[in-house]
């Protein structure tokens, strides 16, 4: 990310001297670790290998520490190397700023041992940012295809130069901002570790315009000679939520592009969905609403099998969206009963989920309608979708339950065509037990209870402490699956009723003794029977009927 703007000063030669000394030492250390220590570790472990009869010296303590020395240490030395290598690059930017007029540089100006200016340059961060972008842009056109070293292609030369700057966000933004689609084709850059890192850096910079992002999307959709798009590019972007957010912002304004990407071969469109999920993880409630809407209205027609292959990733996207839509618990407004505030919050959440999920339900319905001759296939599809949702890496199993229930509804329709007339979900249609909206509202309230129980209310989903509570997880999984509570669940509830009530009290009154008595009664009374004996099962089953 670009540093904040402000005044800046440095002696370029000093920066280069620091960088050169440290990177040289880091390289020496790394060489010694790989060349001397690692073989000694191997020799030791080989000499102390467990025999086939299992008897040997107890090396558990050794093995417990091996990872830190064999992997963590070299990796960290490499990180330090790159941090300090970049200092030389900053020195170059200061020197360029000096030459650009921020310091009177003459032929008599001192030059340090690094070859850079040996005098303090006073400038500002904005100028240095512009220098970095300009340097990147200059690279886009600077290499002469007629003046290459023997045996080197233009592509090789560019890859080599780009590798030196692949994690320099502004340089990469300058480079990709200046290439354009035609130049990218001319350079023939492959998508490898260097170009993918450079792309991620450029997207992360926030300095890449829509035209440049569009050119890059075109290039990664189909390079000449490589008609199949490479899914690893979007996967690399997905690994950096900030970069993913930039690419997603472009796609939000280009729905047709998004549709084309999702219509691409399976592995590629899966990587697109993962990238969108990554971006979604950074989004506000409003941004999430928009993304869900745009993707929902751009889902391309698919065969059952195509959809089936995307179901897991789409499920992960939807559940991430459902979590992001939650937002924080509402603050206690002393003018209103907290009961009303909480009720309004949950209703609002339920409505948002209704609207957000509806296009996806319609999409699934279309697939079913188009394949109604194959009930078994449709059933498989829905089961696969529900399984994908349930196994998606989400924070809150209750939401998986909500979506599982929604798709369970679709499945119910496949199994029993008599339910078809209840599919219509107009505003006045009766809400049956199979109406997805009931499940969504249940999800809203179960989420509320989860958050309240944890005493957090700050973050979406289950807080870390609760995630580690295997007993709570077990209860929630049963509730999400609509299964009766078993002995283990009852045992957990019996042992945690007080904790649940304490958490409710804390969240309800912000830890102060002047909690709204109406809110408190609402929280601990029917239909939320949070008595010390914790009738959690009634609570879970009661929510649907009260808030359907």
């Amino acid at each position: 990310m670009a540093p904040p703007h402000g005044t800046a000063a440095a002696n370029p030669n000093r920066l280069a001297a620091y960088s050169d000394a440290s990177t040289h030492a880091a390289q020496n250390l790394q060489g010694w670790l790989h060349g001397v220590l690692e073989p000694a570790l191997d020799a030791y472990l080989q000499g102390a290998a467990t025999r086939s009869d299992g008897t040997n010296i107890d090396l558990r303590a050794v093995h417990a520490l091996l990872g830190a020395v064999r992997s963590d240490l070299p990796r960290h030395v490499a990180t330090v190397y790159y941090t300090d290598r970049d200092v030389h690059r900053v020195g170059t930017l200061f020197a360029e700023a000096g030459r650009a007029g921020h310091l009177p540089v003459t032929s008599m100006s001192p030059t340090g041992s690094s070859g850079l200016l040996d005098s303090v340059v006073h400038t500002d961060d904005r100028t240095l940012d512009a220098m970095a972008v300009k340097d990147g842009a200059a690279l886009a056109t600077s290499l002469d295809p007629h003046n290459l070293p023997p045996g080197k292609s233009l592509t090789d030369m560019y890859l080599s130069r780009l590798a030196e700057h692949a994690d320099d966000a502004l340089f990469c933004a300058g480079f990709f901002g200046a290439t354009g689609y035609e130049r990218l084709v001319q350079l023939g850059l492959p998508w490898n570790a260097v170009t993918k890192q450079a792309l991620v850096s450029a997207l992360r910079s926030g300095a890449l315009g829509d035209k440049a992002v569009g050119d890059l999307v075109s290039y990664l959709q189909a390079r000449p000679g490589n008609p199949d798009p490479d899914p690893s590019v979007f996967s690399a972007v997905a690994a950096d939520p900030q970069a993913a957010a930039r690419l997603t912002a472009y796609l939000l304004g280009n729905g047709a592009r998004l549709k084309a990407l999702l219509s691409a071969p399976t592995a590629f469109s899966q990587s697109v969905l993962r990238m969108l999920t990554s971006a979604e993880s950074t989004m506000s409630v409003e941004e999430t609403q928009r993304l869900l809407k745009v993707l929902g209205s751009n889902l391309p027609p698919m065969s059952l099998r195509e959809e089936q292959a995307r179901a897991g990733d789409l499920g992960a996207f939807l559940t991430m969206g459902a979590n992001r839509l939650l937002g924080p618990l509402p603050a206690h407004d002393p003018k209103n009963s907290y009961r009303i505030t909480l009720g309004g919050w949950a209703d609002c959440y339920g409505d948002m989920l209704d609207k957000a999920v509806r296009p996806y339900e319609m999409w699934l319905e279309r697939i079913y309608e188009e394949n109604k001759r194959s009930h078994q296939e449709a059933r498989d599809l829905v089961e696969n979708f529900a399984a994908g949702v349930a196994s998606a890496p989400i924070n809150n199993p209750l939401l998986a339950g909500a979506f599982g229930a929604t798709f369970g509804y679709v499945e119910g329709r496949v199994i029993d065509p008599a339910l078809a007339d209840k599919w219509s979900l107009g505003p006045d249609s009766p809400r049956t037990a199979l109406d997805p909206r009931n499940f969504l509202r249940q999800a809203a309230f179960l989420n509320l209870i989860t958050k309240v129980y944890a005493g957090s209310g700050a973050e979406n989903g289950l807080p870390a402490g609760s995630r580690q509570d295997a007993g709570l997880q077990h209860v929630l999984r049963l509730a999400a699956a609509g299964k009766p509570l078993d002995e283990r669940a009852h045992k957990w509830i019996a042992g945690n009723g007080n904790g649940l009530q304490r958490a409710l009290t804390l969240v309800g009154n912000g830890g102060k003794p002047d909690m709204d008595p109406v809110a408190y009664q609402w929280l601990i009374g029917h239909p939320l029977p949070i008595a010390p004996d914790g009738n959690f099962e009634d609570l879970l089953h009661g929510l649907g009927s009260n808030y359907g």
Partner: protein
Amino acid sequence: VTQPEDHANYDFTAAQELSALLAEAARRVDEFADNRARWRADQLDRPDEKWQGGRRRSFDQAVAPQQRTLHDLATRVRQLRSAVEAATEQARAIRPRPR
């Protein structure tokens, strides 16, 4: 836990060499971190030529935890050395299996 009557399959020479190298590794890592701090003071923090600005702040934010991690890793290397030496002591205590 190994019992005294168990036999040991243990290369004492490799263990001795590794122990010495682990001691050297820990020293090298600490020395690298210390040198880095010294170069930083000498080159980047000179009163009349101090590096300033947003990139300096980003650099400082990256370096502080890196330095702590370097010293932590040196400690881990020393702990590994202790574990190797404990294993060696264990091997020495085991009687050779009768042939």
